[in-house]
């Protein structure tokens, strides 16, 4: 079984290696087949491993070491994988969604010149991501963490001939690097204080070494949180994700919606013991989640670019996951990760169909009326938007979001404010997702259709739509029956939500469920009103306060501007002031000295025989004098 587990991670790497080595010679069809097959095989093996894990139950936890990676001083790091309930869920969801997106991309990217390069990067990404979630020690996890960051950079800048895309790629790389630096310091601290980087040993040793709520554990938790914030695009390091939409749509679906950006959620969930021991840090997690979901909900409401709407929505949904982590609903966060992976990948892919159909047109206001021309894209987008908006009872998003909202109310670490923000966020979510749906698919057609989706693309859409509906039924809330196999499955890894006695009655749960259901419907209705009464909504948007608010939200609350003033400009000023580089001057000076010495010495080489003879005589006299006078 451990061999199969290794193959799950190795196969995508192998695919990437083959694609890279054969890039010049492989025909497009073969490259696409190879790229899909490596990830598909990885998914099948993941299912086999997961099946055997389910059979064994909690005793199926698998630790396997391939070889010792390094052994220096006290640092012993192995190439090892760890399989438990958490990594099973992550592994299966990632490989499955990745496989579907590869299928989709093999058709949608077919006209690209760099088809092979695309699949090489995509396979590399899947391999790194699986390494990240399966690693049994923090260093291997960090390797996967940086690997997915690299692939994100390479794929955002996939169309590198356009300067704008290259800048977006660099922005993503640099901003996430800030978080990664914090995370690296956190790992150093863990190693110096606990003497190990093996995750299970760290989780076991932490309560023995560190006092609860002490400075050390809080610092470590906050540093890890820094890494998670950067990777998962949470406030205040969220600015890179909307720009990352410069990459191809399958990339946005896979990396910037379904998998990589949730790595931060995985990291915090994986290190949950440390966060439980640091209540202050955990509160920060919850606050960041709440602020982020609120912030990006408003920003998504006014975007014109369909992919930017989805990008802000991704930030907002990950905000929900952080909120869940912050209130101790670990399994709720992973549940929402799972449903979000399905419906957000679905939304991106069907948006990709629309964008391809309209000559790469991203502007929602130039779309419209595509309902009849692109029926599959329309229905699947509808399912995705409904799931994102948490349409009551029939969608996966409803169950996972409700689990988070209920936890944010009933948990000892939660409270009314968190619940209120989350519920208002749900209203915003419904409003912006159906605004995008109405603008793109309803009304009159404004642009001619250029290209229809192929069979594999539709297959991927339909399968994802299916899971966007049914994936929620494995985690029912208590008032709707006690069917919660997902929570039960996760209970072998995570502790239960710490309930507050006065806020956790069943009656309250029913009421809150009703409120969030009504709010989600209200949000859809608001979006409908906005679309139906365009003249009225345009009038509001064109008024002076309306324009100001619009501009503020459109620019993502001015974070880019703020960072430009705070960091980019001062940095540029310093760089400009030191453009002659005073450190460089020293080394340039060494070179100059050598050059002058050379000029002086070569003056002695006159080429005249008599001067050389004189030199020899002089030398002989000096040597003779030394010998005589000594």
């Amino acid at each position, binding site marked *: 079984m451990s061999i199969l587990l290794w193959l799950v991670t190795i196969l995508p790497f192998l695919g990437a290696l083959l694609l890279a080595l054969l890039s010049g010679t492989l025909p497009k069809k073969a490259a696409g087949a190879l790229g899909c097959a490596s990830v598909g095989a990885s998914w099948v093996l993941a299912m086999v491993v997961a099946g055997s894990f389910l059979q064994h139950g909690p005793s199926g936890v698998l630790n396997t070491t391939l070889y010792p990676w390094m052994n220096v001083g006290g640092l012993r790091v192995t190439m090892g994988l760890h399989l438990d309930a958490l990594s099973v869920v992550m592994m299966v969801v990632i490989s499955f969604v990745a496989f579907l997106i590869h299928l989709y991309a093999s058709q949608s990217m077919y006209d690209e010149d760099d088809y092979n390069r695309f699949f090489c990067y995509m396979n590399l990404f899947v391999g790194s991501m699986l390494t990240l979630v399966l690693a049994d020690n923090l260093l291997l996890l960090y390797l996967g963490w940086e690997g997915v960051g690299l692939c994100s950079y390479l794929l955002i800048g996939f169309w590198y001939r356009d300067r704008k895309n290259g800048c977006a790629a660099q922005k993503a790389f640099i901003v996430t690097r800030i978080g990664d630096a914090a995370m690296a310091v956190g790992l150093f601290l863990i190693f110096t204080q606990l003497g190990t980087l093996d995750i299970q040993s760290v989780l076991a040793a932490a309560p023995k070494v560190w006092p609860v709520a002490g400075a050390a554990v809080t610092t470590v938790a906050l540093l890890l949180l820094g890494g998670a914030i950067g990777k998962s695009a949470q406030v205040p390091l969220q600015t890179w994700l909307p720009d990352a939409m410069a990459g191809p749509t399958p990339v946005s679906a896979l990396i910037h919606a379904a998998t990589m950006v949730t790595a931060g959620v995985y990291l915090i969930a994986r290190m949950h013991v440390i966060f439980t021991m640091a209540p202050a840090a955990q509160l920060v997690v919850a606050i960041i989640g709440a602020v982020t979901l609120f912030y990006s909900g408003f920003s998504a409401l006014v975007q014109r670019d369909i992919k930017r709407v989805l990008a802000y929505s991704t930030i907002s949904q990950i905000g929900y996951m952080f909120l869940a982590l912050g209130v101790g609903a670990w399994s709720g966060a992973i549940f929402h990760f799972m449903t979000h992976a399905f419906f957000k990948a679905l939304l991106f892919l069907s948006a990709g169909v629309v964008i391809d159909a309209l000559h790469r047109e991203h502007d929602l206001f130039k779309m419209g009326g595509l309902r009849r021309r692109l029926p599959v894209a329309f229905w699947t987008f509808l399912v995705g938007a409904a799931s994102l908006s948490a349409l009551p009872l029939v969608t996966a998003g409803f169950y996972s979001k409700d689990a988070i909202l209920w936890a944010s109310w009933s948990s000892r670490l939660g409270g009314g404010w968190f619940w209120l923000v989350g519920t208002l966020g749900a209203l915003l979510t419904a409003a912006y997702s159906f605004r995008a749906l109405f603008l793109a698919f309803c009304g009159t057609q404004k642009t001619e259709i250029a290209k229809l989706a192929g069979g594999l693309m539709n297959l991927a859409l339909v399968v994802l739509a299916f899971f966007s509906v049914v994936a929620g039924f494995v985690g029912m809330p208590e008032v709707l029956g006690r069917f919660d196999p997902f929570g039960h499955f996760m209970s072998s890894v995570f502790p239960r939500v710490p309930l507050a006695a006065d806020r956790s009655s069943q009656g309250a749960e029913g009421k809150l469920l009703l409120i969030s259901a009504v709010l989600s419907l209200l949000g859809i209705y608001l979006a409908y009103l906005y679309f139906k009464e365009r003249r009225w909504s345009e009038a509001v948007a064109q008024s002076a306060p309306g324009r100001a608010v619009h501009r503020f939200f459109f620019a993502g609350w001015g974070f880019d501007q703020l960072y430009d003033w705070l960091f980019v400009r001062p940095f540029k000023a310093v760089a400009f002031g030191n453009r002659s580089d005073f450190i460089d001057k020293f080394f340039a000076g060494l070179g100059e000295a050598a050059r002058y010495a050379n000029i002086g*010495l*070569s*003056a*002695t*080489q*006159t*080429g*005249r*025989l*008599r001067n050389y*003879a*004189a030199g020899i*005589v002089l030398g002989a006299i000096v040597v003779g004098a030394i010998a005589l006078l000594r």
Partner: protein
Amino acid sequence: MSSVPTNHALILAAALFVLGALGVMTRRNLVFVLMSVEIMLNAAAVAFVAAAAKWRQPDGQVIVIFILVVAAAEVAVGLSLLLRIYHNWKSVDVDEVSLMRG
């Protein structure tokens, strides 16, 4: 048979050597430079003869024969170089032959 004192012979050798060295350093005509080198070789030969006379050993006189052979070879090489230089530069001025200036 009254012998020449060793000192005198050595002074003669030193004077010859200095004259030769000065000639090498100051003469620009390659023919005279070669002759000055010969004078320096002969100065060394005189010093060897004086030394052989002082210690009554034949070795010094054998060395003189060697020096003569070396001098003959040196003149052969030197004169052929001189011919080649004259052929190329149409001059025997050593200062003009300075291609190796750095």
